C-alpha cells in the first residue's frame, strides 16, 4: 500500500502575528514555522498503518526552501520519501490552485490512500483536501476520529457536532482528512533524524507537474485583500491591579451574582 500525506508548514502556534507592510498576510521573516498540527495527526495515522503492515509513506508539501525542514522532520518521524513543490510562480495560489498542484502529485504517485489534516492553523480554510479528492476522482471524508483499513476499503468515524460520530466506508483510492486528537503523535527520534538525511526529497515545479497555467496569483479566483485585528465585540471590562486586588474584585463580582 502506498500512502501520500499532505503537509503544510505554518507559523508556529506561539509565533508573533505582526501584519506585513502590504497588509495582506503576516510578517513571515524571522518567525518560527512548524508542521500544521492537524497534519501531524495525518502523518501519525499513516505511520501507524506502515508500522502494522507493508506501506510506503510519501509526504508532500508546497512552499519555499523553509519547507524542507518540515519534510525532514516528517522523514525523521518515519516517512519514506518526500516531494517538495517549490515554485515562486505558484505563490499567491488560492485553495483551488493549491489543490490542483496536490492533485497533480496524486496523479504522479497513484497512492492507495491520501491523508491530510482537516484544516490549516493559519488560513483555516479546511477546503484543500476535499478539492484534491474531487479533482482526482476519488471519494473523500473529513474530520476523521478513527481510520481502519481492510481489503481495499477504509472505514472512518467522522466527528459531528456534540460528540456524535458518523461512520462511512470508502473504497481505495480515497482521501481522508483527519481531525486533531485522533492519535498521539510521535516525535522524531535521533536515529530517525540521522536516517532521514539519506531519504530522497524530490523537488518539483508547477511546470513539472503540468499545471503551470492553473496556479499562482494570476490564476487565483480568491485573494486575501487584507488581514486585520478583529474589532472588539462588547469587549471585556479589564480588571487591573495586583493579583490579590484582582482576586478580591472577581470574588466580589461572583458574590454579587449570587453564586457564593
Amino acid at each position, binding site marked *: 500500500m502506498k500512502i501520500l500525506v499532505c503537509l503544510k508548514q505554518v507559523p508556529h502556534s506561539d509565533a508573533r*502575528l505582526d501584519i506585513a507592510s502590504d497588509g495582506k498576510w503576516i510578517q513571515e521573516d524571522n518567525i518560527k514555522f512548524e508542521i500544521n498540527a492537524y497534519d501531524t495527526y495525518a502523518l501519525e495515522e499513516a505511520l501507524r498503518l506502515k508500522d502494522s503492515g507493508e506501506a510506503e509513506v510519501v509526504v508532500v508539501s508546497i512552499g519555499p526552501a523553509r519547507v524542507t525542514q518540515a519534510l525532514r522532520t516528517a522523514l525523521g518521524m518515519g516517512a519514506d520519501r518526500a516531494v517538495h513543490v517549490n515554485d515562486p510562480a505558484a505563490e499567491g495560489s488560492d485553495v483551488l490552485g493549491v489543490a490542483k498542484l496536490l492533485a497533480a502529485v496524486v496523479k504522479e504517485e497513484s497512492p492507495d490512500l491520501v491523508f491530510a489534516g482537516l484544516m490549516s492553523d493559519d488560513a*483555516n480554510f479546511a477546503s484543500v483536501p476535499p478539492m484534491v479528492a474531487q479533482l482526482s476522482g476519488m471519494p473523500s471524508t473529513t474530520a476523521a476520529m478513527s481510520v481502519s483499513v481492510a481489503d481495499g476499503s477504509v472505514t472512518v468515524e467522522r466527528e459531528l457536532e456534540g460528540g456524535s460520530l458518523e461512520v462511512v466506508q470508502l473504497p481505495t483510492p480515497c482521501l481522508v482528512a483527519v481531525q*486533531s*486528537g485522533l492519535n498521539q503523535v510521535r516525535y522524531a527520534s535521533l536515529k530517525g533524524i540521522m536516517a532521514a538525511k539519506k531519504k530522497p526529497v524530490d523537488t518539483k515545479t508547477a511546470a513539472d507537474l503540468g499545471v503551470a497555467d492553473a496556479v499562482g496569483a494570476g490564476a487565483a479566483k*480568491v485573494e486575501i485583500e487584507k488581514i486585520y485585528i*478583529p474589532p472588539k465585540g462588547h469587549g*471585556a471590562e479589564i*480588571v487591573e491591579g495586583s493579583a490579590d486586588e484582582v482576586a478580591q474584585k472577581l*470574588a466580589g463580582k461572583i458574590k454579587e451574582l449570587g453564586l457564593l
Partner: protein
Amino acid sequence: MGTILIVAEIQKGKIREASYELAGLAQKSGHDVKSLVLGQGVRNLAEEFAKKGGGEVLVAEADALANYNADAFTQATLAAVQASGAGILLISNTPSGWDFAPRVAAALDAAFVSDAFAIEDEGGQPVFLRRVFNGRLDARVKTKGTPVVATIQPGATAPFEGSTDGKVTDLDPGIGECKTKFVEVKAAESKGVDLTKASIIVSGGRGLGAPEKFPELLQPLVDALGGAMGASRPVVDAGWLPHAYQVGSSGQVVTPKLYIAVGISGAIQHLVGMKGSNFIVAINKDPDAPIFEVADLGVVADLFEIVPALTNAVKAAKG
C-alpha cells in the same frame, strides 16, 4: 442582480437554524433567492422553507440523499447550480457543509471561500469576511468570476424571520455512482461529566502548560466555587484530560451562570461552546486573545498568580 442559491440542511427532521441564517443573508442581498432542499421524503420541509425565506425551492429527493453522503450531495448540488443559473452558492459550514462544499467548488472550477461571517458586495462581486489564525486575525477576501461558492459560519448572522411566498419545484438530482457509503451515526457516548447542568464552570486551556496543573491549580478553585471543571480542545487533544471535559462545538455546548476561562485564547470552536454563558470571566496573559471579546470581565495577567489568589478570595468571600 443574479441568483443566490442556498443549500438548506436538514437535521433531526427539521431545517436547521443555520439554513435560516443563509436565507437572512440572501434575502438582504438584493439577489434573486433560490434554495435547494435535498433528502428523501422532504417535500413538506421544502414547502416550509419556501415560506420562510427560501424563495423558489428546488427539492431533490433520492434514496442516496436520505443520509448525508458526500458524493450524492455534491452531484445534487451541481445539478441545482445548473438548473438555477446561480452566481453565488451558499452552504453552512457544518460537518456536512465543509465536507462537500469544496468538492462542489472544485467541480465548478469556482472561487471558494469557507467559514465566512459576513458578505459584502463590491461591484456585483461578493467579498467575504472570515477569521484566520484560529480567530486571532480577520481577513477580507475578494473573489473573481462566477459562480462563487462559500460556506457561512453558523450562528454568525441573523436568521430570516419574515415570510415569503416561494414555490417548490422538483429537481432531478441526477445521481450517478456514489463511492462513499454511509454506515451509521453513533450517538455521543454517555460522558460521565455533564457540564450542561453545571451552574459554574472553570475551564483550563493550553496556558496551564502541563496536565498536573489541572488538579493542582484549577481543582481548588473549582472546589471553592462548587463548580465543575472544563477544558479546551488542545488540552483534550494532548491527552491531558478526557474528551468528556471538552467545551466547544465538538464537545459540550454550555450555558452556566458563570464561566471562567483560564489560559484559553478562545479559538472559534471553543467560543461557540461557551459564549451563551450568563457571565464570563477570562484570565489570559495575551491582551489580544479572542476570549476577551466574549468575556464580561477580563484579567490580563499570569494565571499562575491570579488563580491561587482568586481561590483564596472566593473562600474568604464565602465567609
